[in-house]
Structures are given as C-alpha cells and as structure tokens.
C-alpha cells in the first residue's frame, strides 16, 4: 500500500461489508500530524472480535484464515510513530482512527483521494457518504446528500458519466487544497 488513499479504499470496504448505510471519511492534516477517521453505522464488532481484529490471522472471510487490511494500516501508522485505534459496538457501528506522523520519512503520501472516493461510490452508490479533507485551516467536504439534491433519486451515482464527473470535481478540490499547502510551505 503506497498511499494512505489506498488504505482508505481497503478499510472502507469493511464498512460496506458490514452493511453500513452511512460512512464518514475524514482526513485531517494539521502540523506534523495526519489523522484519518473512517466511521460507519454498520453492524459493529463484538468485544472479542475487536480485541483481535488487527491481528493478521483474524478475518471474517471464509475462504482463508487471514485478513490484512487493518494489520497493514496499523503497521503503516505505527511506522511513523503514530497509532491505530478502533471503537466498535454491535448494532451501532465502527470507527477506525489512524494517526500518522506526517513528517516521518516512512509516512506514505495521501495519494489519489479522488480515485478512492470515486471507486467507493461506484461500488456502493446507495451509501450516504461524507468525505472531509482538511489541510491546516482549509477544508472541503463532499456529501452524497448534496449530490443527490442536484441529481435526483432516480439516477445512480455509479452511472459512468456521473461518477467521472464526481472524480473530476474531487480532483479539482484536492488540487486546491494542495496548492494552499504549497503556498504555506
């Protein structure tokens, strides 16, 4: 996993597999800390599963006794002097928080967030997604509720024309954030 955005794509699939209807993805870059939060209202985990979930030999998959999504994210965060924490309750949902030391040499780049969010929506166009990216004091938010207000309920967000529009829109917004970060540095 070369980008934080790829971890997000991977971990958010767990939320969708847990039948989340709502998904909140937040990326906050402040000073030398980058904090990633993925919160869902899926089925949640039992305390027993929660205790072992970032062990690679824990998985809900039935084909093999291994799952690497959360262990890889934990490793990536801890390598930068950060940490991973997971809160979860059955029937309520799960929140995964990863803190990265942004100035650490092993901190992966944020990467293509537009590509990640686009593909999440393409795979689960009915999910209510809020994505916020903050860089210092600037931020932007994409909310599928706002998109649907313009688009109506009839047309799926997964329609190629719509999903590519969303990707281009996000690319513009991400580029603006980067520009501002560059100016500050």
């Amino acid at each position, binding site marked *: 996993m070369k980008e934080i955005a790829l971890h997000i794509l991977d971990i958010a699939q767990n939320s969708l597999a847990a039948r989340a209807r709502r998904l909140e993805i937040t990326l906050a870059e402040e000073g030398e800390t980058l904090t990633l939060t993925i919160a869902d209202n899926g089925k949640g985990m039992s305390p027993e599963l929660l205790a072992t979930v970032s062990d690679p030999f824990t998985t809900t998959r039935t084909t093999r006794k291994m799952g690497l999504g959360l262990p890889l994210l934990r490793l990536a965060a801890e390598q930068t002097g950060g940490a991973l924490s997971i809160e979860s309750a059955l029937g309520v949902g799960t929140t995964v928080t990863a803190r990265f030391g942004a100035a650490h040499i092993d901190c992966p780049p944020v990467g293509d967030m537009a590509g990640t969010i686009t593909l999440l929506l*393409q795979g689960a166009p009915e999910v209510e997604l809020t994505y916020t990216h903050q860089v210092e004091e600037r931020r932007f938010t994409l909310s599928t509720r706002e998109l649907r207000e313009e688009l*109506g309920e009839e047309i799926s967000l997964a329609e190629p024309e719509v999903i590519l529009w969303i990707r281009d829109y996000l690319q513009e917004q991400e580029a603006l954030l980067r520009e501002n970060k560059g100016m500050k540095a």
Partner: protein
Amino acid sequence: MKSLAELRAIRERMEKQIDLRESNDDRIRVVVGMATCGIAAGARPVLNAFLEEVNKRDLKNVTVSQTGCIGVCRLEPIVEIYVPGQEKVTYVKMTPDKVASIVSEHLVNGRVVEEYTIGAAE
C-alpha cells in the same frame, strides 16, 4: 471550476435517454477484484480506466462493478468479463494501458484478447 449545478444538466440529459438502456439480462459485466490484494497490486487505476473507456465509447450495455478477492492474489489485478451466453473470461496482471484494447476488442467486437488472459499467463 466545477459546480454541483452541473449535475442537474447531467440529470436532464440522462432522464431523456433512460429507456434506451438495455434490460439487466443482456448486459455485459466487467468485474474488478478490489480486496486488499487487488488494491495493493493496482486495481484502482484499472477500474478507473474501464469507467473512462466505457463512458468515452458510450457503451450502454456494459456494467462495471467490483468484487472481493478472486483467489489468485499473485496474478492481481484481475478482471473478469461476463458476456451473456458465453463462458467467463479472466484477465490477469491488468494495467490501465491494457484496458483500451480489451474494451475495443472484447466488449465492442466480441474478440477475447487471449494474450492477457489467465490461460496465457499460466
């Protein structure tokens, strides 16, 4: 700068053509493996390339979708193509630059691109 209002124009355009779409049974399905293994191997740009090609060529009978681990992680990114009435075709070690020829040859002209299939790789 893009604004959300542009979605309204897309909506109006699509509502007019919504009944031109073929029913679900005779659609071609393109399925990309998007588990940890697929993502780490580069499935995201491959899926994006399929979306772009399908949109550019305005292929109304093609659905692009995602699935979990297909089971041969060492050959990821893997793409499966289901043409109704035909056997499934599995493309392996996919890259974005292989996508255009698969779309034009396989999806449009119905000719499997043998050199990219799992049969050729094994």
